[in-house]
């Protein structure tokens, strides 16, 4: 395999999730501490055998030096300790930074841990205002845009350019819910129809409430280690086969193109890094903050031609039993979305599926998974390709 990147030197050997959904009995810091310990235990290690920690900050409990505070809480002095903040893309950018730190000899085994509690430790209004503050303070925020409004601008442009319909977007929500229905931990499990989505409350035309991801509490952590240590791990190692990033802009009003994202760039880089193609992917774990974001990622990551994401979703390939299983935990639309940690649950689900530990929703013949996340308003993208066999 023509792997030119750093990632082939590393593998994921541990994972943990907290309870998700509505979790009022633990603060974000306590959730982060809990998943750190649980992921290390899942890897068959003790904290003394781990020498790095990477976290992201929590909106509901901001801490100036977050990773250091989590380590301190655990009475732990890791060799490498840093907080990453790239919005929704934080998860996979942190994984790549961990892999790079390991390749550079800064650590041999790193925990990446994230948690937040947008549901129980913020009011609805606080959560909306803090998230919409990603808008430009002088040239966007004064007009009162919400995060759903930013994605509605993208949705409307895609509809105008490619003939995409509100029904097409609805299929994304229906697909994620169908998978969540099979997951006992999912925040929303009741099956929904396209009609349910279309008739749900309008938030920012053309997006309805069921086109929008959840507001949740929850945390997750993974343990990443050097390849030579992975072979003796307690769990089946999940190898990092490829990684790519794409950074187009920060504010949506500065986007060069509203309907094609830098997921094209990050996807191409990850495919080149891994030597694999979209057809090789057994599982897709994409960033479904809003239904149009999911539709555009399907196009931009090469799973269909540009403009045909709606037809791809409507065809049912992503549903349980389909040929391209997508967000098999239910995604942020139905499993949970605690803010920046949202994509962690796409990663932990991919690890469970690649280990063969996904229980009743376990997919057959799993070898590869593509995980994608984005920060800002489809601004910065990170694509991670995983496999359960050691690259040669």
């Amino acid at each position, binding site marked *: 395999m023509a792997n030119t990147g750093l990632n082939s030197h590393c593998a994921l050997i541990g994972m943990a999730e907290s309870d998700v959904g509505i979790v009022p009995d633990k603060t974000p810091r306590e959730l982060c501490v809990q998943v750190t310990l649980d992921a290390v235990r899942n890897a068959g290690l003790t904290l003394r055998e781990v020498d790095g920690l990477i976290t992201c900050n929590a909106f509901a409990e901001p801490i100036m030096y977050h990773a250091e505070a989590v380590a301190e809480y655990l009475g732990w002095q890791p060799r490498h300790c840093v907080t990453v903040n790239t919005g929704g893309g934080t998860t996979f950018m942190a994984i790549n930074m961990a892999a790079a730190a390991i390749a550079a000899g800064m650590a041999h085994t790193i925990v990446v841990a994230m948690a937040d509690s947008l549901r129980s430790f913020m009011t609805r*209004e606080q959560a*909306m*205002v803090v998230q*919409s503050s990603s808008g*430009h*303070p*002088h*040239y*966007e*925020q*004064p*007009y*009162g*845009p*919400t995060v*759903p*409004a930013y994605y*509605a*601008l*993208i*949705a*409307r*442009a895609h509809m*105008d350019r490619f003939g995409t319909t509100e029904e097409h977007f609805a299929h994304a929500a229906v697909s994620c819910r169908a998978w969540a229905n099979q997951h006992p931990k999912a925040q929303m499990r009741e099956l929904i129809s396209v009609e349910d989505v279309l008739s749900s*409350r*309008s*938030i*920012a*035309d*053309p*997006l309805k409430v069921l086109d929008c991801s959840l507001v949740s509490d929850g945390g997750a952590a993974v343990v990443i280690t050097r390849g030579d240590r992975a072979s003796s791990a307690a769990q089946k190692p999940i190898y990092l086969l490829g990684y790519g990033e794409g950074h187009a802009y920060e504010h*949506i*009003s*500065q986007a060069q193109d*509203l309907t094609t994202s830098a997921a094209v760039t990050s996807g191409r880089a990850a495919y080149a890094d891994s030597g694999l193609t979209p057809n090789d992917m057994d599982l897709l774990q994409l960033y479904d903050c809003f239904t149009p974001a999911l539709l555009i990622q399907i196009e931009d990551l090469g799973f269909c031609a540009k403009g045909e994401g709606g037809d791809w979703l409507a065809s049912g390939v992503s549903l349980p039993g389909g040929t391209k299983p997508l967000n098999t935990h239910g995604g942020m639309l139905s499993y949970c979305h605690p803010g920046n940690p949202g994509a962690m649950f796409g990663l932990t689900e991919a690890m469970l599926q690649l280990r063969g530990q996904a229980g009743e929703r376990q997919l057959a013949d799993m070898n590869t998974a593509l995980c994608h996340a984005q920060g800002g308003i489809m601004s910065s993208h990170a694509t991670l390709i995983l496999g359960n066999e050691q690259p040669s």
Partner: protein
Amino acid sequence: MSRPTPRPSPTELPFYEACARGELTLQHCEPCDRFLFYPRTHCDHCHNPALEWQQVSGKGTIASYTVVRRAVSEAFTAPYVIALIDLVEGPRMMSQIVDTEPEALAVGQTLSVAFEAWSEDIKLPVFKLHGVLGK
């Protein structure tokens, strides 16, 4: 609760002073022969630091729009229209479309700038469907 209101930096001040006069001005980069927005210390294409302010037409077209049904905070009353507007001089800006029925809007429609007070000192550009007289 009041709407978020810009506190202009020295670089941005000419834009807001023009808004207060009822004029839309943009920075122009002579070497690139290109307008830019938002205001910057350097051209975001060639990084020329000598940008000149010029009054522009205030006309543009709708690149995309949304009717916000759930306001961001108590400072705003839904529904209101957020749009991305492609100015005829080139740059794109976010604004509100005011004095219109949301059902009347479509991508590609022509708009004209107007100015609304956001605070005692600050007026901001908003847009109306071109040819529609203000209330």
